[in-house]
């Protein structure tokens, strides 16, 4: 287990480094960042001044090493637009995005798991077909459009919820509904197919033959083994929710990290964008690494030959 954990951690660190290089390199991918920052109205002299002020005249490797060392100590440079430390801005915006993401994740889980189990108990039955239809629809609806339509119906027509912002808890209802419906279908499908596999296994038949009530068979014997793929997927979905909230935050005018990323892009505030890309990627790397370790702890087969 220790060997597996170490191997997995080495991979995680390497991926983190590659991701940091990519988010850093994004700035240089399309040419001269100094000209991009100077904007369309900037002169060559402006660009030159920016080049020196930001250190763009140094070799790229040196700039990258400098950026990564600073990032490790929590310093992502200064925002061009706000003229404030990037870290400070992000720290003020990140709580609402995390709140929205985890809340939506929990709602998705609370709907997907029971629905997946019910669907698996009678494959091709009425519940299964309805659940599948619900999931297929969820995968086809563009989340930003669903958000707008819900605003029209519940915000404008019925006035049940505020049409933007998160000043009260009511403001969270629609964004959470939209985001959780976005994450739910995949989780429902994985629960369902995992349960179908497990429910036909010998030990479940034995448990039933012993005369155990069906809910104990499902909760204690079946679910435990069907849960492994769900853990992996949960890590992925939580990451997807955090980055997917970019679109949703702009629909509902929520001042989180996603909206900050979008607005920073529109005003070419690249240090902020780089930092957010890196942070979201690192969150994803940490989540998937942790889920792999949990899976390895629960299932010795994953750890590989040597124990």
């Amino acid at each position: 287990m220790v060997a597996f954990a170490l191997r997995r951690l080495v991979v995680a660190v390497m991926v983190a480094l590659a991701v940091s290089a990519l988010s850093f390199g994004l700035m240089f991918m399309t040419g001269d960042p100094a000209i991009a920052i100077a904007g369309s109205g900037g002169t060559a002299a402006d660009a030159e001044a920016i080049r020196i002020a930001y250190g763009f005249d140094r070799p790229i490797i040196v700039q990258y090493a400098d950026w990564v060392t600073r990032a490790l100590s929590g310093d992502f440079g200064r925002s061009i637009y706000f003229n404030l430390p990037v870290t400070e801005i992000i720290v003020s915006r990140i709580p609402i995005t995390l709140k929205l993401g985890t809340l939506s994740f929990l709602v998705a889980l609370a709907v997907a798991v029971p629905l997946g189990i019910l669907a698996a108990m009678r494959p091709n039955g009425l519940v299964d077909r309805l659940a599948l239809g619900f999931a297929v629809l969820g995968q086809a609806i563009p989340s930003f459009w669903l958000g707008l339509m819900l605003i029209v119906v519940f915000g404008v027509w019925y006035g049940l919820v505020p049409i933007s912002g998160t000043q009260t808890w009511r403001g969270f209802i629609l964004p959470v509904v939209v985001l959780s419906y976005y994450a739910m279908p995949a989780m429902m499908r994985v629960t369902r197919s995992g349960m179908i596999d497990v429910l036909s296994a010998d030990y479940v038949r034995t448990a039933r033959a012993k005369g155990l009530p069906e809910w104990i068979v499902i909760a204690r014997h079946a679910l435990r083994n069907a849960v492994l793929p769900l853990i992996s997927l949960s890590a992925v979905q939580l990451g997807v929710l955090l980055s997917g909230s970019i679109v949703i935050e702009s629909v509902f005018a929520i001042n989180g990290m996603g909206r900050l990323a979008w607005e920073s892009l529109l005003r070419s505030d690249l240090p902020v964008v780089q930092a957010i890309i890196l942070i979201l990627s690192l969150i994803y790397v940490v989540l998937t690494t942790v889920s792999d370790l949990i899976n390895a702890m629960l299932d010795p087969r994953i750890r590989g030959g040597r124990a």
Partner: protein
Amino acid sequence: MSATEESPMEEAPTRSRRARVIRRILRNSGIIVGGGLLLVIVLAAIFAPLITSADPYAQDLSARLLPPFWMDRSVPEHLLGTDHLGRDYFARLLYGARVSLGVGLGVVVAAGAIGITLGLFAGYFGGWVDMVISFIITTRLSLPIVLVALAAVALGGASLQTLVLVLGLLLWDRFAVVTRAATQSLANREFVVGARAVGRSSIGVLFGEILPNLRGAVIVVATLEVANAILLEAALSFLGLGVRPPMPSWGLMIAEGRENILFDPWLIALPGSLLCVLVLAVNLLGDGLRDITGPVTR
């Protein structure tokens, strides 16, 4: 003697297998419904100029925000009304299908080429090649796709070509994962070993022997990624970093309709519903194809 007797016997099973596949396709409601809907949308997009004579770019400021036919005040020459610049909404929706389908197709071709090549190499050669490619896949999966696509389009300048290129460079991961796994399971089969024994090059074996056997899996992934690309294009265009106005993209139309969301919500409802129908059709087709090609994909 044996040759004349054997040929019909060899042919019979292939013909009945083809018939069986066709029967399975016809019995699969996902393929029929999804494929049928998709066909209608594709035909509508191709023959858009024949279906409506209205120009999707022609503005008429004296006929702004006319409602569609089921509401009062609607006029017969604009069946689905007009937008905030007086452009015919029906024409814009029709031509918008071209953008969605074009993006879906272009992205899948680019992403498929990258992902399939990587997957073939990783699955066939194994060892350090597999390690490196798997690492690339893991790294790609760690990137927040919407944000990276937005940033790349913002830096590269919003246009249809940039968008297709960026999404193509981002959406190859599932192709690679599926191709890699399928290639691994085929790499030691007799026909591959045989082809290698008679001296075919690795490239020849990969693209000549293994790739044709992956058709089913690749087509299923391709449909899923078409749907993915269409939704991403709409989201990016909605955020103002996809295709540029005045191009009629459904995502962009939703963004433009947003200013009139209070009084004319149909401006948003129409393009959004079409997006739903299109993505639903592609997904149903993909699910149906997965059912008949067997459990190859995750």
